[in-house]
């Protein structure tokens, strides 16, 4: 199979003093290129931990994650960073914009990291695309939550990632704003053919994806393909 993300027997245990807690246990699945997948489950089920492991932000206790057939376990931190910069984009629940950079500069960062000379132009286009062409020089603190998340989406797509990880992308937004942000995310995703992995406990959002992986107590309890994909409203 030609998965872009392959998760094999993934286990993550956190140690707190003498106690150890299994947050993930023997989780395995694969995601094909262009697939749109959501990971759902109650709080504490291991969703964010799984996302972090898939994106190479953390190391598993056991098992492995392969991105484009490369095992993340074989890479050191710097190599994983390079891989993220090349293939991966992120959207976070709390936006994670750099407060000291303007909106435009935030979007430019991934491209500038690649040494892309057209960083500014691409970023400006994306800012226009997310409807914030007139807010480029604003700092994150001068933007509303919805606007900040749109900047964050623009940044996520700026390096043309093959995979996009989204952690509760609408979790900090009201329903209306949340819907707008979801639409934008799916639109851009479709345009760029990106593989999308969303962690959410919002079932409405999950239902708009191709596939839902349900976690409970650190284990996959259900992995279902959606009969009716609805990526656009």
């Amino acid at each position, binding site marked *: 199979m030609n998965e872009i993300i392959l998760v094999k027997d993934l286990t993550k245990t956190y140690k707190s003093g003498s106690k150890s807690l299994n947050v993930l246990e023997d989780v395995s699945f694969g995601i094909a290129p262009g697939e749109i997948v959501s990971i759902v489950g109650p709080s504490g089920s291991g969703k*964010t931990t799984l996302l972090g492991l898939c994106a190479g932000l953390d190391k598993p206790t056991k098992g492995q994650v392969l991105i484009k057939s490369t095992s993340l376990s074989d890479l050191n931190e710097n190599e994983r960073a390079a891989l993220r910069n*090349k293939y991966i984009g992120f959207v976070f629940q709390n936006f994670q914009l750099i407060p000291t950079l303007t909106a435009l500069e935030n979007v430019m*960062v991934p491209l500038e990291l690649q040494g892309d000379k057209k960083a500014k132009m691409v970023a400006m286009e994306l800012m226009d695309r997310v409807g914030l062409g007139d807010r480029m020089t604003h700092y994150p*603190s001068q933007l509303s939550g919805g606007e900040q998340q749109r900047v964050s989406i623009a940044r996520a797509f700026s390096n043309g990632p093959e995979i996009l990880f989204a952690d509760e992308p609408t979790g900090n937004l009201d329903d209306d704003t949340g819907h707008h942000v979801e639409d934008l995310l799916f639109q851009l995703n479709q345009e760029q053919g990106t593989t999308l992995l969303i962690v959410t406990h919002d079932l409405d959002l999950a239902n708009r994806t191709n596939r839902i992986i349900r976690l409970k107590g650190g284990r996959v309890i259900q992995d279902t393909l959606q009969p009716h994909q609805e990526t656009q409203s």
Partner: protein
Amino acid sequence: MASLKFITRTAIRDSRKNRGRLALFMSSILLGISALVAINSFNDNVVDDINNQAASLLGADLDIDGNKEASEYVMSAIDSLDAILATEVELLTMSYMPQQDASQFVRLKALEGPFPFYGKLKTEPVEAAERFRQNKTVVVDESMLFQYGLQRGDSIRLGKSIFTIEGTIKNAFGGVAAGASFAPTLYISKQYLASTELVQPGSLVEYSYLIKLNDDTDPDEWKAQRRERFRQDAMRIETVNDQKEDVSEAFDSLNYFLNLVALVALLLGCIGVASSVFIYVKSKINSIATFRCLGMKGNGAFSIYFLQIFFLGLIGVVTGAILGSFIQLIIPQVLSDFLPFEVTTKVSWTAVVDGIVIGLIITMLFALIPLLAVRKISPLRTLRASYEQDTEGGDPLRWVVYFAILASLFLFLWRLTGDPGAGATFTIGLVAAFLVLFFVSKGIIWSVKKFFPRNWNFVLRQGIANLFRPNNQTQTLLVSIGLGTSILTTLFIIQGLLLKNVDSMDAGNQPNMVLYGIERTQKDDLAQLTESYNLPVINQVPIVTMALAEWKGKTKAEWFADTTRTARSWAINREARVTYRDKIDPSEKLLKGNFIGTYDPGIDSIYISLSDGYARALDVDLGDELVWNVQGTRIKTYVSSIREIDFASMNTRFFIVFPNGVLEDAPQFQVLVTKSPDTKTTAAYRSAVVKSFPNISVIDLASILSTVNDILNKVSYIIQFMALFSILTGVVVLISSLLLSKYQRIKESVLLRTIGASTKQILQINIAEYAILGALSASTGIIIALVGSFLLAKFQLELDFMIRWYPLLIIFTLVVGLTVFIGMLNNREVVRKSPLEVLRKEV
């Protein structure tokens, strides 16, 4: 790796909103750097000035001196030179001012010849410098003129002769102003010295032969050829280079001390920087995690913040160097009492560049400690705020940085002292001092936490709790303010101890006045005069001067030629002032042998008693033979006893005691020891003595005390000036730490107000917090000072340790007051802020 261009750009962009805060971090090194630059500029100028002015410091090419007139050999050596000769006879004696009816112990210099050959005797009026050489006049030290309200034309009696005051003298050759108040300098012409009749056997006289060479004889070579031979005749030779070395050496010590103090201020500042950078990095964790998520490597993120800190460090260091160049203008004024010459105040570019390089290296090394953690910040922070593991745990590079800090300190101190051993000792000392400070402050913090007063009222509890808020800088503040406090406190304690110890010599029946230079014929009249003032004659002893000629079977010349000689030169060459008596003094202790009080002509051997220190210095023991030259007569003696002498009293003390029956007919003078109940009696008695017996000198404890006090005050002035740097650095660290935590404080205050606290309560909480912080810092400093000064007093100064709590209380109050004051200055905004404004603001 991200390109340098991108890193630089991001560093600039990222700093935009933090520049004010970052500048604050760097302000803590400002003072350290400026102290370093100021002191080294000053030192460079001093070295230049010494090189340029050395000849005028000595005033001649050669200075040959001793406490006897030149022997025939010395005189013929001088005569063989193609040179101009000047002579100076210097003695410590009493002066009497009839118009003022006052007397003063003075350093009298009788000059003959055109000395100084280099430089000038600066007098007021200028002509006085020449006039006193021809007339029976005197130029007096400026301070004495002011002290007694003397005027030109007034008289001064010196010995049996009266001189008219010609003017004042503003510079002294071969002396430093600091001790001048004890014995101010007076110049007269040597032709009138005889009329004073002050030069008697036993007077404290120094004869100098000052020479200006007319040909190209190398004075150092000339000295090298004759030094040993001159020494046998108890004469020393000093050249311009010796003088240069002497002065340089004195300044080297001062320079080490000042540099160390500057370094301490710099290190304190660096601790402030490290602690601020630590907080800065903490505030940047989210941004760094995001950068990491977006694919930036650990080193890339590190470089961004390294660059920011580096540039601000550079600005801080350069600003410090500029400030230092201004501060150096005032250093010569602070040190003026210790400078025998005028120091120029030009900017030393070497000092500036040195300061910048050293400052930047040390600052960056300290900043690296917290900065290194940036490399390890996990991108997972974007998902989980409580991901703590990344910044904790050991990073081997940290140890490299610690090592580099130690190494650079060592190199700096090595370069300063020019000796790797001294460099290592200073480094270890500094590190030990900081460790002690660190652990004392840590101990204090631990005890406050451990014995947290849970039943105190809310305001106090909250005030204490604030000290342990996240990102607190309590420890840094305790260290920096504590160090400044400890320097000042140690200074006060030691100064108090010295004075108290000198003062205690006056306690009980201890004598407090010594009269010397008494002729045998004056002995009874003086005793009568003393008793007429109701003063007790505690002791009246004869003194015979003599010189050591042979000991343990070899002559002095033979001993000097002997390379295995263990006897110390001072013990061999000193003019011995010997007494004779038939019993041991009550203040002395017989260590070994028998004290033989009377010479028995039947036995034919003369047994003498030596002090333990002198016997050790001469390396002789019981039974050893010593031959003395008593004004031409040789007397052979044997050591029969060794005594211990109590130096902590103002009584007469003799290294060498002869038995009765040997020296009675030798030329001699007397010493009388008495005790005066008060300064008024002392002054009246002193004047009466000087009036009736002009040749007799009176030294009283009160004037010694005031001199000691005077010198201590001048020394402590310098130390206080330097301690100021570390205190101010502490203040800057305090201000920056308060500003750093301002938003956190505003939020807390707002929260407290939201739940019903009054402005007064919030103010009280803050006052409690700063007062406790000040109290802890002051305690850290005072505890260290107490232990430090105890050790210093016990082992180094050998003084009795006692504490006056009153100055400590003042220091404590001042430190607490200063901390509260600065805290409250910063606090106004915290209290005034409206809750809504804060809730809206991105903090």
